[in-house]
């Protein structure tokens, strides 16, 4: 069992048209697809958390030398590179995380064409020793952290 963050940026995939210019039924289909997928993954017990972030317009960048924090509006990176939303999943394997990511990326856009939005698949680091089975043995013999 491993936890993965699947992140979506503002990179639109093969779709250039901003959503404001889609037909209402296309937006509906897009949202229904996400809703049904989330419902399914929540029922499977895999979806842990799902969040959509406000846009870069509301983002702040904070830097500090330990005395006076400096807060600026940013963004300093490309608009498209900002994280737009993320979901956390507990899955049996990386293969499963990739499978879910593929379904997220296939969300329909205008004319029902899959947007092919890039989805970042990031495994969450945890306090546990990785790969529970077998790891302990290695650590014992390798004089690693046991």
């Amino acid at each position, binding site marked *: *069992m*491993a*936890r993965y963050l699947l992140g979506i940026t503002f990179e639109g995939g093969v779709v250039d048209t901003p959503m404001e210019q889609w037909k209402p039924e296309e937006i509906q289909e897009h949202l229904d697809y996400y809703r049904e997928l989330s419902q399914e993954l*929540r*029922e*499977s*017990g895999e*979806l*842990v958390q799902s969040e959509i972030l406000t846009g870069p317009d509301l983002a702040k960048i904070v830097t500090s030398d330990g005395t006076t924090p400096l807060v600026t509006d940013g963004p300093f990176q490309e608009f498209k590179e900002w994280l737009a939303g993320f979901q956390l999943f*507990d899955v*049996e394997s990386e293969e499963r995380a990739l499978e879910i990511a593929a379904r997220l990326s296939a969300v329909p856009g205008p004319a029902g064409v899959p947007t092919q939005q890039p989805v970042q698949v990031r*495994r*969450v*680091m*945890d*306090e*546990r*020793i*990785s*790969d*529970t*089975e*077998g*790891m*302990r*043995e*290695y*650590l*014992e*013999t*390798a*004089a*690693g*952290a*046991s």
Partner: protein
Amino acid sequence: MRRYGDFDLAEDAVQEALLTAATQWPRDGMPEKPRGWLVQTASRRLIDQWRSDRSRRDREERVALQELPTQETSDQDDTLTVLLMCCHPALTPASAIALTLRAVGGLTTAEIASAFLVDEATMAQRISRAKRTIKDSDEPFRVPTDDERPARLRLVLHVLYLVFNEGYTSTAGRELHRAELSGDAIRMTRMVHRLLPDDGEVAGLLGLMLLIDARRPARTTADGDLVPLAEQDRTLWNRVQIAEGAAILAGAMGRPPLGEYRIQAAIAAVHDRAARAEDTDWTQILALYGLLEQLTDNPVVTLNRAVATGMVEGPTAGLAVLDSLDEQLAGHYRLDAVRAHLLEMAGDTEGAFEHYRMAAARTTSLPEQRYLSMKAARLRQEESEPPVSE
């Protein structure tokens, strides 16, 4: 081996001798010539086996055919039946774990959720889905037949082992419920052992858990950082628990099946009886990993054998064992970590640094990352400073 011509039997006898060594030496002191002693013990065991005129296979078959204790006899027997049903082949390990903890471990859904760091509703979904999967499967909730029972019991042991590891591999403090999982696993395994005292692997698993869990007080610092086995304060180990684990292991001698848990327990016993890390009997550990390798195709076992080889025959020999794993474990941080360790032993500071760094970048565990980064950083420091004798 050639002495007796019957390879299977001779091999069994050597295995028994190795395991006897792992359990007896602490009590009787180390024999002066271990190799000779092993051969002698093996021969004696082989003769015992001929005399009693019953082969391992016969005994295994008998155990496999053993009747399931009747359901009515006690609550505990009921519990075993439920355990056998929870560890259904249609379930993923994670689902079987959740269901087992709920139905047999007596944990509340909230406790299980807290152990796995999800909210209660999510865990409730997982458990009800597990139940539905079993109900919808070709073979819904029912007591496994005699034919299915041995295989199902292996699944049960696997699930209990995973529960134990979930608890053991977490660091104490922050994840209290998770750490308690080890205790739950020991409790449930103890119960199975009480009901099936003649099963060698059940005993092996219980022994393994006790021997490993005994080190808990020494394996984290006050800050929650992990302490490597070689650096642990061994006076903190739970001696009572080690003695119990060793006794269970000794009691399992000659009881089939001889499987991975019993051999792993024997390895843990060898570590546990070394008063100091440098007293560790690596020759014996190397032999036990050799045995384990014959039972499993898990490349991690070979990785462990490489380390043991490094300790017995020197780092160059250990590194040579690693070469056979390059394909199977390509890109896996463990291979890098072991290679770094052996390169460091061999005095190749630059190579060791590079592999520690790669291992740190590839692990998914924060404690491991901290540990491996620290190893790399220390090597860098040693390079830039004049050598200091330790």
